[in-house]
């Protein structure tokens, strides 16, 4: 005990440095942006958010998210089952590629799609002759978003699947349950919280995606501009109120995500 009181000064110093760093890098800037957005009251904020270009950007962002999240959830569950339960040769490599979007620059993702679906791309010629528009349109934006938000459901479900093991599933199938019934009645209830976490993280990443989408969308205001691109465009056009207002909206979505995760973790622990 005496050792601790003697060195409490040094502990205070560590605390001071840690919290000071957090304040400078994170807390002060984020607080300021809320203050800037509401500095002249709620009205200018509302006006900046409710103009047609901003509302279109918000709607498009939600649309892309609503397509990407269900697809990645279905893939995530299948892929997690494949990784944990099926010993497929080359699984280590597949595992690495599932994680790759977490460590890869979004501009590389954007470039990859650009090279596939662009004018001179691998599929570009075929798409043009058949009149299908992928690049600078919704399909490419969805593909980019799916790429960057791919790992979240897999990463949440895999450890839970490992933990629950196969005893109950074995028992169910011995008792004559089909594999689908086994999955629905045994596996799914066990992994439902993991899936829920994964869905929340996927949605948050999709709503906030910027780099990959900005390369493949073209960013035409009112047509292919997402909310994050609206922030960039507003800032570069010296419309700071618009940029701050849209940023605050995105920040509120991010904070909602964090709250949802905290609430769910409580529910998970009780379950």
């Amino acid at each position, binding site marked *: 005990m005496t050792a601790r009181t003697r060195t409490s000064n*040094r502990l205070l110093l560590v605390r001071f440095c840690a919290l000071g760093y957090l304040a400078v890098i994170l807390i002060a800037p*984020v607080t300021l942006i809320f203050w800037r957005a509401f500095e002249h009251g709620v009205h200018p904020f509302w006006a900046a958010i409710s103009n047609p270009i901003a509302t279109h950007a918000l709607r498009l962002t939600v649309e892309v998210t609503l397509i990407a999240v269900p697809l990645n959830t279905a893939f995530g569950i299948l892929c997690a089952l*494949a990784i944990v339960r099926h010993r497929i040769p080359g699984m280590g490599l597949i595992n690495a590629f599932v994680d790759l979007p*977490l460590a890869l620059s979004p501009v590389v993702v954007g470039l990859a799609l650009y090279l596939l679906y662009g004018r001179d791309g691998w599929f570009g010629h075929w798409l043009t002759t058949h009149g299908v528009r992928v690049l600078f349109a919704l399909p490419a934006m969805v593909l980019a978003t799916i790429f960057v938000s791919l790992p979240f459901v897999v990463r949440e479900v895999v450890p839970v699947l490992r933990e629950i093991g196969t005893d109950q599933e074995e028992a169910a199938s011995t008792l004559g349950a089909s594999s689908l019934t086994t*999955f629905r009645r045994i596996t799914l209830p066990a992994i439902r919280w993991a899936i829920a976490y994964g869905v929340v993280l996927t949605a948050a990443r999709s*709503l906030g995606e910027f780099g990959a989408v900005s390369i493949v969308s073209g960013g035409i205001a009112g047509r292919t501009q997402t909310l994050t691109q609206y922030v960039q465009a507003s800032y570069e056009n010296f419309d*700071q109120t618009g940029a701050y207002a849209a940023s605050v909206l995105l920040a509120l979505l*991010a904070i909602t995500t964090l709250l949802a995760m905290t609430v769910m973790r409580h529910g998970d622990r009780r379950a």
Partner: protein
Amino acid sequence: MSQLAVEVARVPRARRRALGAPTLGSGIALGYLSVIVLVPLAAVAAKAASGGWHHFWQVAWNPEARAALELTFELAGAVVAINAVTGTAIAWTLVRDDFHGKRLVNAIIDLPFALPTIVAGLTLLALYGPTGDLGVDVAYTRWGVLMALLFVTLPFVVRAVQPTLLELDREMEEAAASLGAGRFATFRRIVFPHLLPALLSGVALAFARAIGEFGAVILIAGNLPFKTEVASLYVFEHINSDDPTGASALAVLMLVVSLGVLLVIGALRRWATRHDR
């Protein structure tokens, strides 16, 4: 060979038998992964390799690309060094210290993960940019880019070190202290070696993120080749100026770094679990 057979025989039958709908489900997952991830990345590699090895180096090693790569690695190195210290300090404060509002601080650590990167860049510009109230202006400087990278990489080391620190047996530290070790010696000799695998994997993730970050730096960096242009901005600018070959050359290098980091993290994970046994 016989060794392997013994290993396989040891795996219980239940686990060897695939459950669920193995072939169809795994097939769909593999197909999806190929369409979304593998084929597009193959296109980047093919584009970079299209002119041959010599041409690739010529493109990837031109002065502007080289300046971008050097800056990127310098900044990523600084990010790693700063995060290793501050991340460990923050994790330590959250686990061992007690103060008002600790739970709130713990909650906001994840904010850089949840916050869109373009918003991260804008928030920093609001305070430290030309219209900020502090009288500092980091816009269009390397300091600004470094700050943006520190913002987005903040949670990696904290969240890697925190659980290990929580699990650490304090009796060992108390034993060391009772044997006369000072606080610093205890940390260096007892705590630090246990934290090392977690710290390194957190640092590796922060490194990968710093190499590839785009959204947070684009507003702060402006578009200044040789000065604030990092690799991701180089790729972006060269796509825009219709030079996909130049963009692909750097993109492939970034891809290799990302894969390398993931391999390192996999190795670290195996190392850490071996320590447990």
